[in-house]
């Protein structure tokens, strides 16, 4: 087992030909990773991702080899994955206006070349989900690309397939979550190709680290939306005077940690309709490809 890379929230290990993604309990706010972990966050998001992979397997195969064949110290928060050739495009689906999508709409009335109706506000639901791919350049900034740009990059057939799968994954996830009181405003998917060229869903899927989760009961277009799980941290951090929202972030007080942990669990339980304790750290319901 070899540590290949340590990221902001997750680490990557190699074990022979396999890769192992290990989630930590770190949490970020306003793009700054805070020094205090949220206990079990890594397990909760890993189990949620595995839960989704299982429910999306008929749309696209996934990269999961095993969620249990991992070192005991990472039990519940690590996934052994296939090493794929990764598609050089981020596949993003947006069902609501937020982030760069909102910014693009305000500037041009469209997102990734897809025109949207006038009069939409921050947090507005879109008439239908839109596919907004972006580049994966090693230099410069990632930027939106149109579908035609993407087709020029990866080929028309593959671009169409990536768009279809991305929107299907988002729609299924958003519909299911909405019925359980969670708005999945948007999501970013990663895809790879197997040796035979088939498309495989990779990385994590439909977690709050790859998507915006809003509480349906708090949703109100025209203002910044409240995040379902880490809003306590965001609210608390906004009360801190003297922090310029740059690293290093301040330590999180215990009451905020426990409230935030409870919200991560609530998000998990709302979506899966399963009690967090019953899921346990090693009993995933993953269907591998």
């Amino acid at each position, binding site marked *: 087992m070899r540590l*290949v890379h340590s990221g902001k929230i997750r680490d990557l290990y190699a074990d022979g030909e396999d*890769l192992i993604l290990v989630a930590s309990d770190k949490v970020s706010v306003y793009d700054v990773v805070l020094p205090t972990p949220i206990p079990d966050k890594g397990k909760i998001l890993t189990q949620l991702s595995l839960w989704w992979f299982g429910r999306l397997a008929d749309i696209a195969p996934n990269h999961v080899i095993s969620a249990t064949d991992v070192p005991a110290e990472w039990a519940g928060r690590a996934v052994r994955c296939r090493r794929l*050739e990764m598609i*050089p495009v981020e596949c993003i689906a947006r069902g609501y206006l937020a*982030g760069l999508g909102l910014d693009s709409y305000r500037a041009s009335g469209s997102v990734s070349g897809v025109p949207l109706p006038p009069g939409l506000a921050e947090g507005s639901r879109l008439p239908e989900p839109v596919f907004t791919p972006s580049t994966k350049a*090693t230099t410069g900034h990632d930027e939106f690309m149109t579908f035609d740009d993407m087709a020029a990059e*990866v080929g028309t057939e593959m671009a169409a397939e990536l768009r279809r799968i991305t929107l299907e994954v988002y729609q299924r996830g958003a519909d299911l979550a909405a019925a359980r009181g969670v708005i999945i405003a948007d999501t970013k998917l990663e895809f*790879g190709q197997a040796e*035979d060229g088939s498309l495989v869903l990779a990385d994590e899927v439909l977690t709050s680290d790859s998507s915006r989760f809003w509480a349906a009961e708090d949703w109100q277009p025209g203002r910044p939306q409240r995040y379902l799980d880490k809003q306590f941290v965001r609210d608390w951090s906004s009360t801190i005077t003297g922090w310029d929202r740059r690293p290093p972030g301040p330590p999180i007080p215990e009451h905020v940690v426990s409230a935030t942990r409870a919200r991560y669990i609530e998000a998990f339980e709302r979506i899966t309709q399963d009690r967090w304790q019953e899921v346990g750290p090693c009993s995933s319901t993953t269907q591998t490809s």
Partner: protein
Amino acid sequence: MQFYDPNKLIEDVQSLLRSDGLTAEITDSLTAQIGASTLLRGLGITPAIDAVDAYKRILDSGPWPDADDRRAARSG
């Protein structure tokens, strides 16, 4: 199938052009990336990023909503 990283091809070409005395700075990354991928596909090679390289980038970027907000702040 054969795979090659379009970003690496861009670096390869930059290096080649610089050895001929050209500046070869990226002024339009989208055009450069599309061009590199198109060239690869024209040569029967599938543009793709090695999984380790791709995950390094993904993990360094952090949670996607943060990254998306970051891009919005930069463009706004």
